[in-house]
């Protein structure tokens, strides 16, 4: 590997760009790929894109050429809207799973450091907070308030971004009403299909901690496998 390439890699990581080091295992040469920053289509870039999405380095063969693709993704982030009881359980689980967690709730009695001692709290309205936090492909968004005034602006911001996961707490009935409101705002069926609601895997969860587990498991499955279809 060239020293110059190592320096460029360090700079790219510093700038939180999603970068892949593609090493040709026969000739030993490496190159940096930024597959989300180009429209170019080729098998190597597609494999690099998939490796970044799955957060997993991989070997890749293209005819005679064998590559090793080592990935460098910026930290995962999770924005939890609603500093509710489930959030108290979900925030530390997400942190332990490697996420930088932000809990958003303008209601001070909910989003207090007493209730969330080691969590980054944001007391702005969700739309304002989302604007600045700029959710991206490495972000999961979970809304937990049940309150349309708080959840909907966050969901709208989420749907306009390319976050890898959107989850919304609420029963099937609440979920149907939410769909109706978002449809009225101009979102399509395809948009709404991105929202996982009722949130979490169906593991019979009852307590806040169990619900947090079901949400964390769903997010993990979508991050690592792309879907929960085969569960």
């Amino acid at each position, binding site marked *: 590997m060239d020293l110059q390439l*190592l320096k460029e890699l360090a700079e790219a990581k510093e700038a939180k760009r999603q970068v892949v080091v593609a090493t040709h295992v026969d000739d030993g040469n490496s190159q940096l790929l930024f597959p989300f920053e180009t429209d170019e289509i080729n098998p190597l870039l597609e494999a690099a894109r998939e490796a970044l999405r799955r957060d997993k380095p991989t070997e890749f063969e293209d005819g005679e050429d064998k590559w090793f693709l080592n990935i460098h993704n910026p*930290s995962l982030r999770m924005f939890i809207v609603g500093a509710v009881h489930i959030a108290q359980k979900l925030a530390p689980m997400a942190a332990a799973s*490697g996420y930088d967690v932000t809990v958003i709730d303008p209601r001070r009695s909910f989003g207090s450091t007493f209730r969330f001692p080691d969590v980054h709290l944001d007391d702005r309205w969700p739309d304002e907070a989302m604007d600045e936090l700029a959710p991206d492909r490495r972000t999961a968004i979970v809304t937990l308030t049940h309150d349309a005034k708080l959840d909907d602006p966050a969901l709208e911001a989420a749907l306009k971004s390319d976050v890898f996961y959107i989850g919304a707490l609420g029963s099937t009935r609440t979920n149907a009403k939410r769909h109706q409101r978002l449809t009225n705002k101009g979102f399509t069926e395809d948009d709404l299909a991105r929202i996982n609601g009722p949130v979490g895997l169906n593991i019979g969860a009852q307590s806040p901690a169990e619900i947090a587990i079901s949400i964390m498991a769903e997010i993990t499955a979508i991050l690592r496998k792309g879907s929960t279809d085969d569960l």
Partner: protein
Amino acid sequence: MLDKAVKDDVLAQALSWKEAGKRVALATVVQTWGSAPRPIGSQLAIDNDGQMVGSVSGGCVEGAVIQEAITLMEEGGHKMLEFGVTNDEAWEVGLACGGKIRIFVETVN
């Protein structure tokens, strides 16, 4: 989180050794079979004094990787190493856990 921090440290250390005028090699796990101790993509940086940061196994094969890395620093180039387990080797340079790994070793030029 931890894994990411370790990965960052390895590359940062490789860079700082290089900038201090040392010879540096990088070892990367490129494939694993069975219960390998470190996942694909794990890295180890080695300098010409045999100092190392990061890991490519739970300590099972690092010694052998360092030997190869130091040879490469003198001769240049890159090399693919493969480690598995046999009963005789298990406490030498094999993997006691029973897995098999392939490691790509290269110099930083």
